[in-house]
């Protein structure tokens, strides 16, 4: 009896989650896909986004993501490797770093937005720019990425490292040939989570990369991210709903595409290096 009840409850919770997911994606897909045309991806928005497309906004979004990811991957992977491979993980120093990362991971994004606005836009003089926005996004995504990458490195049995050492491999060789390849699935998961967090971000970007919906001609130009555009169209522009749905549909497609290609690229490069 108890088993049956438990099984019903478990199935029910899966059903609820699946329903919520399909309700959201279905709603966006039906309302967004019905009227979408190729033009929408390439043309500039007009009448404050009520008409026209999202061309410049897509470009800004990809630039933001590019800056964010290049920093998250390089700094994040470095920190994760340091914390797990180069320092004793119970040392006071790594404890402090881990604690601060956990706190940062839970900080609301608007706080990162205001921090980015003060540090990058004002103190460093980058102004409202894609560079400021990308750096702010990186600050936001780093804690999440480091913690996932680190926990996937930690999950590797120490025998792997000892074995590699016994064969006379250097620390670097061990890392590149043994530990990292094993940790890759976890690192990809962390990367995908970071991309998701960056692409969905609105609050941190309104005050850093800004609101300008023109085609950016440099990284020091202000550029509107897709999520900011969706927020503005649905919450601030009367009559912007249809284009908000279209943009949201594009955002979901983009996320799926990036997640898929990120994982294949990383898997492939690793096989080549091996």
């Amino acid at each position, binding site marked *: 009896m108890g088993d049956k009840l438990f099984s019903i409850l478990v199935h029910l919770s899966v059903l609820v989650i699946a329903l919520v997911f399909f309700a959201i994606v279905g709603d966006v897909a039906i309302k967004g896909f019905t009227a979408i045309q190729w033009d929408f991806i390439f043309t500039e928005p007009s*009448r*404050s986004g009520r008409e026209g497309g999202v061309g410049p906004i897509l470009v800004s979004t990809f*630039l933001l993501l*590019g800056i964010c990811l290049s920093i998250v991957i390089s700094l994040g992977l470095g920190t994760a490797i340091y914390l797990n491979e180069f320092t004793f993980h119970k040392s006071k120093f790594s404890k402090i770093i881990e604690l601060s990362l956990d706190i940062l991971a839970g900080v609301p994004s608007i706080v990162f937005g205001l921090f980015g606005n003060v540090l990058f836009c004002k103190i460093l003089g980058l102004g409202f720019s894609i560079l400021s926005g990308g750096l702010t996004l990186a600050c936001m995504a780093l804690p999440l990425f480091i913690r996932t990458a680190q926990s996937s490195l930690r999950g590797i049995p120490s025998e792997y490292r000892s074995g590699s050492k016994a064969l006379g491999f250097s620390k670097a060789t061990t890392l590149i040939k043994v530990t990292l390849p094993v940790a890759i699935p976890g690192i990809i998961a962390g990367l995908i989570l970071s991309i998701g967090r960056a692409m969905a971000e609105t609050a941190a970007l309104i005050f850093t990369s800004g*609101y300008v919906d*023109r085609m950016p001609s440099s*990284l020091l130009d202000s550029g509107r991210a897709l999520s900011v555009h969706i927020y503005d169209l649905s919450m601030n522009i009367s009559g912007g709903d249809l284009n908000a749905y279209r943009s949201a549909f594009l955002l979901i497609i983009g996320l799926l595409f990036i997640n898929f290609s990120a994982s294949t690229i990383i898997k492939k*490069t690793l096989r080549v290096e091996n």
Partner: protein
Amino acid sequence: MLKLLALVGFTLSLSQFSFSAEKLVLTGSSTVAPLLGEIAKRFEKSHNDVRVDVQTGGSSRGIADTRQGVADIGMVSRALKPSEKDLTAFTVAMDGIGMIVHSSNPIEKLTQEQILNIYKGKVKSWKNVGGPDKSVTVVNKAEGRSTLELFLKHFQLKPYEIKASVIIGDNEQGIKTVAGNPNAIGYVSIGAAEFSISQGVNIKLLPLNGIVSSTENVRNGRFPLSRPLNLVAKGEVSGLKKQFIEFAKSSEVSDLVRDQYFVSVEQ
């Protein structure tokens, strides 16, 4: 790793690209920002080497950024206060603020007193003002929004006196909140509300002090709760700043003003 280096190289080469155009930065009211965004685009068309960047964030931000020099011009959706006389205001359009309820609500009008009591939390049910026996959902604007400040001033309320059920930010959010809740009451830009009603959104505008809430009554000055949409600047206005402000006030952009459901102020 190579890909990473390539990406960094690409970003660096891109940042070399920035051309040395003259640039104007505007920040402030989210109500005004979409309008100025369109005005900026039209201005750029006739001034080739000028870039006008329009940012958003609320009127208070517009004031602060203009004072600090972060922005060249601020956007403020209300008249300046006595404490803000260090800035100069230029009105580009007018907007009215109207009370809205769900279209299924049988209430056709509310007195000043009744609205006041609803927002103070003294009237908790629509029954007490002649409606059905349903509890009122009070929709209020967030702190720092000039719509809130105007509303407070008109009804001579203090912020802490308001007992709100829902706090909202931008206009369209207010319209959606009320359209989605048959027992809600809120206040939003009249132009945006008129447009939403014409699109079949489930809201209706209530008259204020017996005067119909319409852009027409805002235009002729009869509507009691209206506001100027201002550009503000610090110190003496000259050069490009002056050119842009004059352009934004001119009849060359009055079609853009109407397109955002505001009332244009013909020169």
